[in-house]
């Protein structure tokens, strides 16, 4: 299949020029079956207009008209997989499922576009035929099958039409209408016996007595024709049919006698009535004459010729029927039906593959469940031996898996169907599992997507809207959570980890550090966590305490393991923890592994520092100086404060030191002094940046100057002085 990309870049006869200019077509593939093409070259060339065009194509497009149908079918498919994992090839369960598929097909037929109706009507015909043959409703399929065949052919190929009937009955002399007898014959072989009697009544008033009496007999036979559906026991039906057929044969022979006396006017009518009776008697050659195709022939065979026709008899009967009513090989749907009738299932499936991807996938799946599909059929096996040059290997895929994968590959063209696509892949063995793993990490995370609003009135501005407005700044984690729950369903730990890592990174990019921390924990990424805590501290320096506090609040509280209560902030702080903090962990195992990681000293100390420092500021705001002092010292003594923040903490201690009340114990004051000395040592060892950088920047921020270490050092001097005074004060008391 060749597709010309528009607009044309190389005109007729210019291919040589194209090659000579060292141009070539470059391509790359993306997800969703997309291919990108652009013209580029090996050399530096004069640019033409076409060189800036980028073409896109989809090599396995999905018809968007079928979207609804795909959604309808999907739950039926999944329930089929579930049922049969519990019990072995339960025929009646499969029959029920087949029926559900058929209903969906019917619904689709009503809703689909006019140009695809014919195709879907054919699909429906094939499906119902398969159901008839392979999935009998009673679950065993041992009974006679003619009525079901009639039902089928009458649904998929309506004949005769009611218009035809009306035309005939409304004529002045119906039996003289051109179409009269063809109509009658059609009614007969299609089983519409009572309908046929209507127009036949016009023959009752025929001048020739023999004709009218024969017509009466014909009508009565039609009325009394036994239908298997009205009998409870098969042998009753067959006995009745035998009796009735004898009666029909008697009528046939009596008309043969009467026909001898026919004149030129009545001869035709006698011939016509004779044919009608011959059909009723089940004369094969006459049935083959009247039937339009093998399908009609088969149904009529079961109705008249062999009323005991069973499903298992059909293949052998088909041999005979095809001789008289050969298959029209130009009709692909009939080729499939013929293969099904002759029990050549693999051939039918192969033909379905060229017909419709939905059909071949779901039909093979259903047939496979009852063991009707040949694994490694002979002809395919021979082909392998001829082609492969290594030892003959069994195929890695079964036919069922191959067709389902093919269908899912097509669904992959629509990114909105990602969850359905993954589910189909998941049912296809190892190859399917590989594709699930490859695809699931590439599903877009859609963090910036707007959340669905449930209220329809956008103009209403009430208290709720204030909250929704605030949450509009939060990232949308719906898609991420959906992806992660699919990972959990299929036990894809590695992939879940990768998705969490990617989410954490994207959250960091958008400044949502708290949520990023939560995802880091889920991904078990201690390293990235360290980077995020550093970024949060960075925010403190550049944006101040409020932003810092809200960021820390957005970290799930269970991770922070704080001894002092931090839930009180909800009512005090403007940046309320209620909106920012989102409890991410939902189940226990995640919680457990998250806690395990949080217990890792490298991780826990960083988180603990953030929590304590935030608490410190909170206490200072509340004027709870003693708690603030306690927290400050804790961070230093417990060795959870990062080195570069020591000077900042010491600077924070200034107001506490100068407070009239003694807030620190003597030991604690000495500790502070020790830390101060460590900072000085570090500075002398030329590690000013390590020890003074944050303090310098904080001080500079207030004044608007450039950060300077001198200023930081002079601040340290002030602290040293304050500490000295404080210690002295302690001695005096």
């Amino acid at each position: 299949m060749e597709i010309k990309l528009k607009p044309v870049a190389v005109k007729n006869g210019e291919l040589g020029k194209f090659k000579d200019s060292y141009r070539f077509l470059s391509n790359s593939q993306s997800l969703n079956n997309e291919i990108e093409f652009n013209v580029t070259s090996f050399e530096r060339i004069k640019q033409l207009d076409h060189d800036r065009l980028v073409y896109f194509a989809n090599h396995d497009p999905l018809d968007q008209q079928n979207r609804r149908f795909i959604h309808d079918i999907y739950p039926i498919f999944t329930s089929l997989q579930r049922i049969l994992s519990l019990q072995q090839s339960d025929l009646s369960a499969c029959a029920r499922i087949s029926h559900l598929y058929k209903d969906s097909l019917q619904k689709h037929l009503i809703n689909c576009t006019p140009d695809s109706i014919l195709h879907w009507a054919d699909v429906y015909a094939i499906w119902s035929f398969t159901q008839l043959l392979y999935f009998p409703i009673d679950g065993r399929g041992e009974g006679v099958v003619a009525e079901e065949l009639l039902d089928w052919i009458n649904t998929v190929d309506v004949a005769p039409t009611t218009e035809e009937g009306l035309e005939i009955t409304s004529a002045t002399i119906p039996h003289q209408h051109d179409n009269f007898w063809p109509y009658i014959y059609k009614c007969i072989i299609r089983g519409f016996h009572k309908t046929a009697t209507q127009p036949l009544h016009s023959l009752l008033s025929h001048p020739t007595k023999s004709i009218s009496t024969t017509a009466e007999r014909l009508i009565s036979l039609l009325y009394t024709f036994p239908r298997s559906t009205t009998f409870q026991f098969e042998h009753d039906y067959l006995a009745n049919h035998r009796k009735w057929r004898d009666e029909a044969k008697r009528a046939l022979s009596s008309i043969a006698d009467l026909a001898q006396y026919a004149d030129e006017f009545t001869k035709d009518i006698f011939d016509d009535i004779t044919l009608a009776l011959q059909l009723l008697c089940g004369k094969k050659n006459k049935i083959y004459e009247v039937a339009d195709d093998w399908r009609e022939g088969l149904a009529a065979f079961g109705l008249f010729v062999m009323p005991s026709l069973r499903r298992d008899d059909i293949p052998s009967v088909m041999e005979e029927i095809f001789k008289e009513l050969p298959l029209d090989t130009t009709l692909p749907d009939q080729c499939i039906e013929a293969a099904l009738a002759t029990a050549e299932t693999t051939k039918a499936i192969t033909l379905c593959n060229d017909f419709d991807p939905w059909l071949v996938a779901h039909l093979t799946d259903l047939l496979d469940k009852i063991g009707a599909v040949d694994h490694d059929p002979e002809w395919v096996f021979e082909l392998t031996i001829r082609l492969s040059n290594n030892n003959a290997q069994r195929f890695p895929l079964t036919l069922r898996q191959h067709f389902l994968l093919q269908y899912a590959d097509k669904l992959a063209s629509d990114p909105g169907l990602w969850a359905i696509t993954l589910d189909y892949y998941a049912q296809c063995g190892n190859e399917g599992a590989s594709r699930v793993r490859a695809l699931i990490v590439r599903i877009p995370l859609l963090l910036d997507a707007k959340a669905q609003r449930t209220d329809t009135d956008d103009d209403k501005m009430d208290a709720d809207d204030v909250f929704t407005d605030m949450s509009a700044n939060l990232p949308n984690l719906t898609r991420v959570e959906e992806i992660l729950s699919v990972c959990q369903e299929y036990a894809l730990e590695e992939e879940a980890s990768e998705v969490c890592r990617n989410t954490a990174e994207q959250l960091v990019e958008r400044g949502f550090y708290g949520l990023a921390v939560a995802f880091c924990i889920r991904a078990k990424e201690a390293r990235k966590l360290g980077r995020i805590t550093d970024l949060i501290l960075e925010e403190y320096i550049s944006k101040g305490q409020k932003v810092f506090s809200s960021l820390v609040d957005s970290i799930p509280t269970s991770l922070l393991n704080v001894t002092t209560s931090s839930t009180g902030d909800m009512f005090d702080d403007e940046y309320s923890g209620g909106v920012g903090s989102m409890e991410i962990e939902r189940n226990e195992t995640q919680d457990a592994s998250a806690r395990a990681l949080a217990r890792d000293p490298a991780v826990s100390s960083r988180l603990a520092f953030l929590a304590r420092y935030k608490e410190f500021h909170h206490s200072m705001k509340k004027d709870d100086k003693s708690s603030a002092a306690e927290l400050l010292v804790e961070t230093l003594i417990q060795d959870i404060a990062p080195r570069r923040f020591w000077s900042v903490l010491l600077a924070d201690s200034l107001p506490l030191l100068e407070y009239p009340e003694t807030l620190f114990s003597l030991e604690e004051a000495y500790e502070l002094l020790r830390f101060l000395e460590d900072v000085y040592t570090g500075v002398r060892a030329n590690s000013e940046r390590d020890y003074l950088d944050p303090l310098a920047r904080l001080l500079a921020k207030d004044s608007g100057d450039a950060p300077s270490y001198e200023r930081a050092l002079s601040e340290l001097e002030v602290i040293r002085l304050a500490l000295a005074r404080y210690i002295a004060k302690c001695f005096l008391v």
Partner: protein
Amino acid sequence: MQTSVYATGESVTAQAYDFYGESMSTGSESGVLRVHRRNADNGWNEDEEMVIEGAHDARVTTLSHSYPSYGTLLASASTDRTIKIWEMRKSSTNNRLIAKFTESKAPIAQVEFTSPASLQLVSLSVDGVLRVYQATIPSDPTTWSCVHTHKATQTSSEQRKDDTFALSVCPDKEYAGLVAVVAGHTTTVDIIGYSTSSRPSVVHQLTVNAPISSVQWSPGCKRGFWHVAVGSRDGLVRIFKVAVTQSETDAKALWDSHLVAELEHGGVVASLSWNVFGTVLTSSGDNATANVWKASYTGVWSCHSTYSISE
């Protein structure tokens, strides 16, 4: 079927999709980098805030996006002999250039981020030198060093017009440090393996009957093997099935490869790409057509469809 056509501001000499297929970057003859985002109608819009004018002094030859767990980094290589790494975060407005590599004395033919196990970049210049760059602090993409330099061509002949310099990194994260390299006028693809402790060396070779013009390594998806597609100047695309196993006796890796398909493309096959599952191959070249190849149930590769920009 064709889904759309999109006109960019200027010629496209390099193109790369991002990891999620939601955006793509293009590079031009004049060294400008642009970013385009997919819109709701499956068309494209240029993100005008992300244009980098003067990213390079000459043609941009390749672009490569990093894996998302390392942030949104874009590596660009150019005939101006430099490789640059850009921070493509939407929010940052500062100078996006975070690293520049100038070791190469020749134009860079191709550059690619390696598998997501580490933050690493492989490059091949037209003098046949392969360089591996690694971020020394994994979480800090501003600290890079060139950890390996390897001469991929044996002969130091002068350059011919039909030399090809191409590389393709093995995309599976379980196999870090594997790259397929074509350097010069050659009929062999070298599979080069390297690690932090061992220098790059040729661990396996794939040989074809004609000078090679492109190579592409397919994702393995844990099947136990890969497909490596090789395009050559005789118009054929050859697909090799490649597998590596750990020998039981010593710690060496055993490589095995054999040809599974020889496909008629026509012209010089200059560009190859695999889909994310490694099941669909697209080849295109100087005959202005592209062929999409798929394998049947029986494992026979054949042409599924052809796209042409000719009349």
